[in-house]
């Protein structure tokens, strides 16, 4: 660990694991991580134990950190059981050890001025938005939250949103709670009403694309945290790329783990994600 601002790697003890709706909240003892954390950072957890056949770390947005207290600093992630790696995490309990690397990635950029902000979360994508809301409020920004999910079980933090934001709206696709529909169905109204200068978003790619569009239509900035499959999470492997337009107007395939996961919504070529656009730098030639 030579760079004091960089990520730390540690064998973290599990303090607790709780279930809330469809999700698990895992609290890890990770001294030193809290101090380095900004909203939007993520953590990479090794899964399956020492002889595991699962080689790659799993990435999770950092939900909350505590700087010290009894346990010398903790870190919370919220996760959904998706496949075998998250299934293994869902069997961890107090005193188990989970190897963690954190904080990773580039966090949400905060506005220099006291401006209204809208924070949009899809499913567990709301996890990183609460510390973001805290930071924004500390800076004097007004914070509005829009959280959505397919169903109430998959909605994360609706109550917390009511506490940490000046206004909050909830949507579910099945109408089990809040407005029936998707976050993007209500977003335009919220952005318009609040006069938001920045829209922050975390959730599935299709939602981010839509959010970036709404923000742009209202002349607001957007900051979107993407989720691309990552092999290393630390910038060495080039698996996690997506096409992003640079300051010079050129499209490059950039690494979402170190140049993201948070990107300016107007810079990501959303409809080209999963491809290498023909005008991207270096795209001319086919490759081995």
């Amino acid at each position, binding site marked *: *660990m*030579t*760079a004091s601002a*960089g*990520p730390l*790697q540690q064998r973290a003890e599990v303090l607790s694991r709780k279930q809330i709706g469809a999700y698990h909240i895992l609290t890890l003892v990770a001294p030193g991580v809290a101090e380095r954390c900004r909203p939007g950072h993520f953590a990479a957890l*090794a899964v399956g134990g020492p002889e595991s*056949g*699962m*080689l*790659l*770390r799993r990435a999770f947005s950092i939900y909350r950190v505590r700087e010290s207290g009894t346990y010398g600093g903790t870190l919370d992630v919220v996760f959904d059981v998706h496949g075998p790696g998250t299934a293994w995490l869902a069997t961890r309990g107090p005193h188990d050890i989970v*190897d963690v*690397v954190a904080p990773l990635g580039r966090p949400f950029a905060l506005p220099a001025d006291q401006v209204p902000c809208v924070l949009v979360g899809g499913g567990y994508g709301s996890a990183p938005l609460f510390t973001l809301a805290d930071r924004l409020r500390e800076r004097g920004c007004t914070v509005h939250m829009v959280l959505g999910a397919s169903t109430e079980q998959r909605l994360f933090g609706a109550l917390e949103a009511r506490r940490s934001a000046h206004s909050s709206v909830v949507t579910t696709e099945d109408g089990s709670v809040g407005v029936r529909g998707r976050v993007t169905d209500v977003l335009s109204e919220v952005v318009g009403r609040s006069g938001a200068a920045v829209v922050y978003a975390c959730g599935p790619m299709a939602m981010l694309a839509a959010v970036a569009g709404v923000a742009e239509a209202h002349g607001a900035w957007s900051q979107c945290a993407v989720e*691309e*499959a990552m*092999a*290393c*999470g*630390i*910038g*060495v*492997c*080039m*698996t*996690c*790329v*997506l096409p992003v337009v640079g300051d010079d107007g050129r499209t*490059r*395939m950039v690494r979402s783990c*170190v140049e993201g996961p948070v990107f300016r919504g107007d810079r990501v070529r959303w409809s080209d*994600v*999963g*491809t*290498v656009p023909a005008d*991207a*730098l*270096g*795209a*001319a*030639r086919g*490759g*081995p």
Partner: protein
Amino acid sequence: MPSPRDVDLRVDLAGILLPNPVMTASGCAAAGRELDAFFDVADLGAVVTKSIMLDPRAGRPTPRMAETPSGMLNSIGLQGPGIDSFLGQELPWLARRRARAVVSIAGSTLGEYAELARRVGSSPGVSAVEVNISCPNVANRGMVFACDPYQAAKVIAVVRRDVPRGVPVFAKLSPDVTDLVGVAEAVVAAGASGLSMINTTLGLAIDPGTLRPVLGGVTGGLSGPAIRPLALRCVWQVHQAMPDVPIIGIGGIKTGFDALAFLVAGASTVQVGTVIFHDPGAPMRIVAELRDELSRRAFTSAAQVVGLAHTPATDSLAATDLEGLRTP
């Protein structure tokens, strides 16, 4: 039993002296900068940089990876900034950090390899050149250079010509051939100072959602501990056939014992690749573990064990009372 401190890890790799035999594998450590957050890259045996091509390359579409049992598939497609940017930014950074740089080069034609060799060969701060020949040869219906001893040898010959004498040239071999020793002999005859073994083996995974190949590139390279037995066999076979040719052992190395296994099978140094993704601190952890593995077996240097597994087992060694060898 020598204390781990007293074990001499220095190795001579085809004429270059390294402080220890553990390097990073090409494409698994970028150009070293990101790993510097986890350990001092100058403490490594060497950093092998991601294979660089002449021009900037955007690589393959995503998904570029799939996890597989004890391994992974990748189809990055050699995304990179091109040689100018590499020589201008990344190589000088390594030099400033006083890390030993082994530069990996890749081309689609003999001309590209030659041009890269000239550019890299004339740059300061290059300890060695590794030639990634697992690239499709545009002049030969896209057949991978490494799969044809004749084409593989031609690449090495043009590279060797343009790299200064004091800088060793390693040919990185693919395991996907019928006669690996034949390819090894051809590239050594063409001037390779040594061999890097192995590159990934070709694999495929199916996506449960679409029932189509997961990877944007359809097939991809399989790496990680899953392929370690295959890599060890390749090192064993080639060292058996050509005991004097320096070998860099690569494939699924996760622990100090794995590194030791490659050394006794015939490798002079090793590279750590995919396991870095699992454990970014792995390369220096492996250096420390290798030191311990040597010391508990009463060895005083890493160099002395190279190729040991090809000699008959001596009783003294077999009887060393290792932890894990039980006497009930």
